[in-house]
């Protein structure tokens, strides 16, 4: 259910309409420009003894639309309660979760601007590994200022992740459509999500040379992201798509990305266009639906905000192809619901190590 409102009574009225049962947990996606008073909303929901969780994202997706003022509510049936985990360095104690015979999906909404995402996901995979499939995305605001952005009945928090076990195995398609422009480059000097050096020289110099040559444009003081959004990095993986890292800012000669870049990792500078990106969205939908097209209840989309920034008005095509593929599988009654994210979470295919992606669309079929 998508509503353009910031009125709590109206939200509560809509929830009435959904008539959630005790087995239902309410999932809230809130666009960053929707100014609803979230703590108050939490209070009201708690008064009604509802089970819920949610996140504030740059934009919410409902059907073929996306809106930064929208608010979507979805009813998900699960006996499990959402759990909040603080993300931090060092050992993170994760709770024992109720996964049934590996037929569960672990939904993870986390603070997309936290510095501890890579470590947290390592720990997450170390603890739960192949007991479930994973899907999720980084919440937060597009101004890249870290603020409380995920919530449960316990409150609205930052630097935290919400873990919610859905007792259904999901099938995810993970694609981005970015193609190799130039590489490989070795990330010779990095620090978490900052690349200081590429091929033993300063990162920006290498990047600048490639991007300016291909685009015919020049980096100025203020246009870094305008140019960089079309030229992300890809971390090379055997037999799989690159894991994309979005260079967001330039700091002197260093490049700051969303998501960690390991030292000595082999990077490629990627380039994309509308066609490859929209095709990738279709592939992701196809991939997601390929293993699961019966008893489908939900289509969850975690799509990178930078793809919108890159595609502009054409972004509606990206969502359009997903709708087309659902229709193709006679699942047009399923309304895709999702968010535009600061980083996407999935394991490739049905297993494999959990990754934090950028500039990627993850289509999850549940």
């Amino acid at each position, binding site marked *: 259910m998508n509503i353009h409102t910031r009125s709590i009574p109206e939200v509560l009225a809509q929830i009435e309409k959904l008539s959630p049962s005790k087995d239902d947990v309410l999932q809230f996606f809130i666009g960053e420009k929707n100014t609803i008073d979230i703590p108050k909303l939490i209070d009201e929901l708690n008064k009604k003894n509802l089970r819920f969780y949610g996140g504030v994202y740059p934009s919410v997706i409902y059907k073929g639309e996306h809106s930064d003022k929208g608010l979507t509510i979805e009813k998900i049936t699960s006996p499990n309660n959402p759990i909040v985990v603080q993300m931090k360095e060092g050992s993170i104690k994760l709770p024992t979760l109720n996964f049934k015979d590996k037929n569960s999906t672990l939904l993870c909404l986390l603070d997309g601007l936290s510095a501890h995402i890579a470590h947290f996901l390592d720990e997450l995979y170390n603890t*739960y*590994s192949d007991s479930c499939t994973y899907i999720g995305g980084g919440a937060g605001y597009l101004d890249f200022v870290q603020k409380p952005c995920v919530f449960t009945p316990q409150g609205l928090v930052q630097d935290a992740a919400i873990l919610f076990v859905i007792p259904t195995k999901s099938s995810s398609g993970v694609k981005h459509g970015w193609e190799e422009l130039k590489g490989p480059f070795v990330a010779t000097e990095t620090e978490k999500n900052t690349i200081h050096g590429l091929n033993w020289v300063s990162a920006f110099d290498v990047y600048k040379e490639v991007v300016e040559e291909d685009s015919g444009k020049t980096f100025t003081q203020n246009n870094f992201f305008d140019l960089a959004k079309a030229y992300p990095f890809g971390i*090379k993986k055997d037999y799989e798509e690159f894991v994309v890292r979005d260079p967001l800012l330039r700091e002197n000669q260093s490049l700051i990305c969303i998501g960690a870049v390991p030292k*000595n*990792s082999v990077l490629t500078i990627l380039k994309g266009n509308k066609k490859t990106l929209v095709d990738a969205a279709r592939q992701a939908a196809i991939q997601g639906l390929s293993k699961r097209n019966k008893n489908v209840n939900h289509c969850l989309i975690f799509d990178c905000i930078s793809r919108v920034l890159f595609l502009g008005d054409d972004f509606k095509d990206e969502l359009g192809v997903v709708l087309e593929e659902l229709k193709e599988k006679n699942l047009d009654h399923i309304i895709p619901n999702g968010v535009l994210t600061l980083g996407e979470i999935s394991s490739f295919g049905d297993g494999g190590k959990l990754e934090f992606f950028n500039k990627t669309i993850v289509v999850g079929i549940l």
Partner: protein
Amino acid sequence: MNDIISEISLLYELSLSIGSSLEFKKAAEGFVKILLSRKNYQHAAIYTSNGSVDPYASDHYSIQYEYPIKIKTHVEQLKSNYTLIHHLQKERFINVDLKENQYPEVCKETKGDYAIFKLSDIGFMVIYSQKESRFSSIELNKLSSVIEKFGVSLKACLLYELSKKQIERIDSVSKFPKQNPNPVFRISKQGNILFFNDASKPLLDELAINEKNLFDTPLKEIVDRVLQEQKVLDLEVNAKGTDYALSFTPIKEYGYVNIYGKDITSIKQATATIDKQKVFYENILNSLPTDVVAFDHQHRYTFINPVAVKNQEIRQWLIGKTDFDYVKEKNKPIKIAEQRREKFNNAKNTQKQYEWEEKVINQKGEIEYHIRRLSPVFDLKGHLQMVIGYGIDVTKLKATELELLKAKNIAEESMHSKEIFLANMSHEIRTPMNAILGMSKLLEDDPLSEKQKKYLNTIQQSGENLLVIINDILDFSKIESGKMTFESASFNINTLANTLIDSLQYKVSEKDVALYAQIDASLKDFNIIGDPTRLNQILINLLSNAIKFTKKGNIILSIVPLRETHNNVTLQFKVSDSGIGIEKEKLDHIFKSFSQAEDGTTRKYGGTGLGLTITKQLTTLQGGKIWVESTLNKGSDFYVELEFQKEEIPLSLDLKSPQKNKTQEALLINKRILLVEDNKINQFYASSILEKYKLKIDIADNGQIALEMAQKNTYDLILMDMQMPVMDGLTASKKIRQDLKLDWPILALTANAIRGDDQKCLDAGMSDYLSKPFEEKDLINKIITLLNL
């Protein structure tokens, strides 16, 4: 070409992730996470032989690192003879065919693919991929070359960690001597200091300043000697006021000497204090005028003071030995040792102090007496610690004691003589008095001329005065000898006082004096418990005095209860007169023996001067008090305060009149009485009374005759004198009861007013007694009572 570059760069990334740390876990993590991420594998586990981690551990293989830990596809411990270990000796890696899984212990999944790589000589690494396609040989070869290096780096990590542990261990061990609070230092053969800890500094400073001060011989020589003799040498030194005990320990193989020291200052001080205390206590023990010894549990001497054994050599010799050794050495009878052992065992077994007197013959052959005492001392658990023996020579005391005993016997004998004398005196005086008073009383009944009556009156007055004097003297001597006792009888004070006043009326009948009693009305309601005879005596004394010293006016006996509780009452008796009074200065003296207010009083008014003394004694002996208030020529007030127990008068009590009535007297007629009496006058007096009441009388001159008569005749009652020739009254009474088995009432007629006679009479089987001189009515009343009439 680009693919190859990509491949190489990926291998490059993997290779660079090797050796990122010397810490095993970090090194493993750095490589494995990159490997799984870039290759999209699901799980990796690193096994190492336990021996490569800890040289003392078993040769089993166990997991040292895995990621993610959730996937448990292995067993924790693998034996070294496990097939896989054997196979890996020949191969660099093994691609496991899950259809014919040879290593299910490490490859648990049924789908996907496993590859196992040898890790140098420390173990192996298991990699799992979920992909349906199997590892290609090219991939395995590529990985093998990288993992081989990884194995070497992990080995380096293990060695590093092992050496770190060893260093830590060595370091911690090396801290022992450093942290030792006692001095530890090492000196080379050449005399150089090779090692020292902080605690050694004062010693070494002293050594540097003044070696001679520390050791008598140069240190170098000591070290040489110790190394040569290969024996630990212990020395005590003092440095800067601290005492040290040093153990020079030769370390032969390295040719140096370790010196282990200990600060013994406090121990030395404590020892000195103990020594001092020891001397202190020994001095005390040695200077005691008694034998003091201590024995162990086997009766062996552990301490002997010089009083016990004077000779120091013998004293020392005796320590650890027993009395048996001692008597043998000294040629003394073994009996002494045996007796002492017996006493020792007694004290030990009973766990109590044991004391006895020992008679010994000294070196001069004289008899000595010793009081010996054994005190067993037990520890907290009740085990015998030692037995302390004390001995004191009581020979002199013993002699003194004997002297005292003799003196006591003499004194007692003399006392006894005095008692007998008093008894005799009493008897000797009373008997004639009895006759005098009795006869004069009988004479009253005969027709006499006025002149004769006057003579008779004088005789009676003088006799009565004399009797009072005699009674006073006897009472006084009784009090003086502490033989005065008081009975506890119930009586009514109202009755007693009125009777008393009545009986004294005749004395004032010829004077212009009114004698009467004022008794508090409440006193009628209860009886009091006390000695009515002695109270009577007190009041008679006071009233008689008042009568004596009052020519006209009033004499009043007033009795009031001063304090009263439920059980007790304190009565105040006041005898007021309007007589001559007593001078203030004399008031303090009048209660003293043989004292009257005026020296001439006795002569003028008569009396012994003992009356008030006896009254005071009788009062104070009963816990009361007496005092006098007087004004010269106006009169005197004598006060007596006495406390009595109260007793309610039973309502049904039949108060018998002390006077027997005529009916009872009539019943006396023809009763047969045996009068046993040696004195003819007394025979006459008694029989005169008895005949008056028409009793039949037989007379026996002594006890013997009485026995004979009692066998022949039957009597209703026997009157028995006490002191008689041939057989006295007590013996005769005993025989009548025991030999003749006769139960006739026997009334003792005793002149012995000395305490104890009454009881003697009753003990001899007599029924009652009557003191001589007696009055007619008293005798008759006693007879009536005894005959149950």
